């Protein structure tokens, strides 16, 4: 879907991004992770040409984006900023409708689409005529997300989208983020410096340092098959929690899910979340369902812990 080849950006003698290449598959979420100044944001901004690369090429759907008109390209790529970048002089409704206006949709279509998104993002329609400064940080970020999604672009770029939020709000939005069906059919590239966030939201993580890619792979790859000492050190402090997040429970049968007190949990859920669910609901066990919604088994606390140990052991034997 997205292919980056030998991409580089030099500011004078500083190589902010130094000859990197990677690919992102369709409907995948790739997280660019690293400390400040590692080049992750510069990389992201080159994808919609907010920054023009010094060298290299970028293909989206096999088309070189450098050959397209920048404005047209950008209207087809969603973009979410850390400080939401909402227009203070536009109402929430007008903010969300910016791209459709640029694309000259008719009024009814815009109104319909805006209402639809507000509902999906759990924002009341009352907010339509409210100015952004009257909203809470979390609400503003949701509006920012709605603005990026409104024209249903296949690609979404997110620059530390949740960086300015407190932990409680962040956790809530993370959950919504994962549940949002709109996002499931998007190819997403997200920048963050928050390791937990990267592990929670990323299908794959691209760890960067000094303008270069140190390692690119799934969360478990980074945890258990680090390329070098840098990767290990980077994850060291939060290692235990990360492992619980990265390791999955035994998968349910093909097309099946988990269930607890009538709430369906996705098959790709991590151990960490299942444990949390168990703790919060004070239940003994989680049901395993097949594709017919029939219970075929169950997992209790012990089962989850042994899954963890089993995985760890497997890793150490490899």
């Amino acid at each position, binding site marked *: 879907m997205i292919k980056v080849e030998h991409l580089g950006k030099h500011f004078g003698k500083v190589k902010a991004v130094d000859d990197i290449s990677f690919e992102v598959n369709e409907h995948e979420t790739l997280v660019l992770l690293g400390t400040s100044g590692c080049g992750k944001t510069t990389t992201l901004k080159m994808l*919609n040409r907010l920054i023009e690369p010094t060298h290299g090429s970028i293909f989206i759907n096999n088309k070189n984006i450098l050959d397209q008109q920048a*404005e047209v390209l950008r209207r087809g*790529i969603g*973009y979410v*900023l850390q400080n939401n*970048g909402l*227009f203070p*002089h536009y109402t929430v409704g007008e903010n969300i409708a910016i791209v459709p206006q640029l694309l000259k949709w008719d009024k009814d279509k815009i109104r319909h689409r805006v209402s639809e998104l507000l509902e999906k993002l759990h924002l009341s329609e009352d907010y339509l005529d409210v100015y952004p400064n009257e909203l809470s940080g979390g609400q503003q970020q949701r509006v920012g997300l709605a*603005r990026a999604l409104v024209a249903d672009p296949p690609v979404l*770029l997110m620059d530390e989208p949740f960086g300015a939020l407190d932990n409680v709000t962040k956790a809530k939005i993370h959950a919504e983020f994962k549940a949002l069906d709109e996002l499931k059919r998007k190819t997403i590239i997200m920048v963050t410096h928050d390791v937990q966030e990267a592990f929670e939201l990323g299908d794959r993580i691209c760890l960067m340092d000094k303008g270069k890619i140190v390692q690119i792979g799934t969360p478990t790859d980074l945890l258990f098959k680090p390329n070098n000492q840098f990767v290990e050190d980077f994850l060291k402090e939060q290692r235990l929690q990360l492992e619980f997040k990265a390791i999955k429970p035994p998968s349910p049968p093909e097309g099946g899910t988990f269930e607890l007190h009538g709430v369906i949990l996705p098959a790709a859920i991590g151990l960490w979340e299942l444990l949390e669910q168990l703790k919060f609901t004070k239940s003994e066990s989680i049901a395993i369902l097949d594709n017919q919604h029939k219970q075929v088994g169950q997992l209790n606390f012990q089962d989850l812990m042994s899954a963890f140990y089993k995985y760890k052991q497997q890793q150490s034997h490899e």
Partner: protein
Amino acid sequence: MNEQQTLWSFMREQSDKLATQTLEHIGLTFISLFFAVLIGLPLGILIARKQKLSGTVLGIAGVLQTIPSIALLGFMIPLLGIGPKPAIVALLLYALLPIIRNTYTGITGVDAAVKEAATAMGMSRSQILFKVELPLAMPVILAGIRTATVITVGVATLASYIAAGGLGEFIFGGISLNNTNMILAGAIPAALLAIIFDFLLSRVQKLNFKKINTATKLSPAILVVLACVYFIPSAYGSKLTAGFTPEFMGRQDGNLGLQSKYHLKIHTIVISDAVMYKAAYEKQLDVISGYSTDGRLKAYDLVVLKDDKGIFPPYYAAPIVRDEALKQFPDLEKTLNLLSGKINDTVMTELNYRTDYLHQSPERVAKDFLQSKNLWRPDRGGNDGVVRIGSKIFGEQYILANMYSMLIKGYTDYGVSTKTGLGGTKICFDALTNNQIDFYPEYTGTGLLVILQPSQKVINLVTGSKESTYNYDKDMFESRYHIKWLQPIGFNNAYALMMRQKQAKDLNVKSITDLKNYLDKK
């Protein structure tokens, strides 16, 4: 209380003029503002885009701002003549800096995240400018326009110096005529205009984003309407155009006398004497009020119209000195009288010609003259007290002040400090009575009509001969102000109407009555 009532009655009496001047003032302000916005806004946007240029552009606008207003108006005359055009250009130059600077600050101050979002949404540069940057910068830009408005209302009073009208006509006329009511009749409305416009713009600034959009769209229309006001009053004309100084306009021995005694009806504009002669020479004016000894009379080939009904009283020049100064400096009177009777009309015109037209320094002209009369002596470098000499703001007075300065330095042990260029009779005379200067050269007619202001009967009585005017002034100044008129210098610098020699000849106009008859003929 009394003062207020007379001010009120003055304003009622002059309500026509007041209304015209106020409208002119508003019009002048907003035309200039309109063009200033038209130029300043794009420049501000340009330097916000190309920050390298910002230093240069803001620097130039800043320098323009520091040029004294009168000087700037002066620079405009050779380029644009007199009247509204140079005034508007000068005013707009003053209004530029706050508009450019605030546009620049406003646009560069827009949150970078918002600009980035706009770019990332796929907005083009012009969409970002009009939909994001300008609306968000608008409160700051409006603050700049507000500052510019207040500055322009203030500076627009000076427009009357170059015949562009406005409330300055009353203000400067009042200063020249020693007429407080007239000054206030101009100054109060001018101040009110500034306050009102400032208030209105502050309200606009406080509007929220939605309303500001509407206001922004309406404002050009409002500006144009207000600007049009200016052209309404100036859309009249007559065969000949007269340019009179603000002082002449309000004087009994000036325009008032021309109207009451000669019944002269002529299209008149008010103009500073600094540019009046040149404007006549360049055929922008046909009749001007001048001084009969003015050097420019010769330089610009003008001719004095005969005052056949005798409305201009004699204007013999003599130093007037505070009695206390005469006591403090016992040698002063005798020294100043050295010049008495030495300069007649022809000599004075010649001396004025040398400064006004040949641009020789007044100092050199003064020295040459004293040497030719064997009056000049080298500076004794004395320090026995300092005599303060004042002078009004025209060439002749500079020359006289220089002569007196040289004489005092050469014949006595006193030091000298000169305060030349005092704006008008009122300023000069107030400086004298308030012990800011010790003496200055004054004219008998001015003393009578501007300072003493006796009844018409007395005026008719004493203006018959030069001696009776001089004696009346001398007695009254001594008893009323303790100021002494020393011996007259000799020349009579009376007010006079002048025309270009050639035009006067073509129209066969030799006297003011001829002029009136010509104008009435149609």
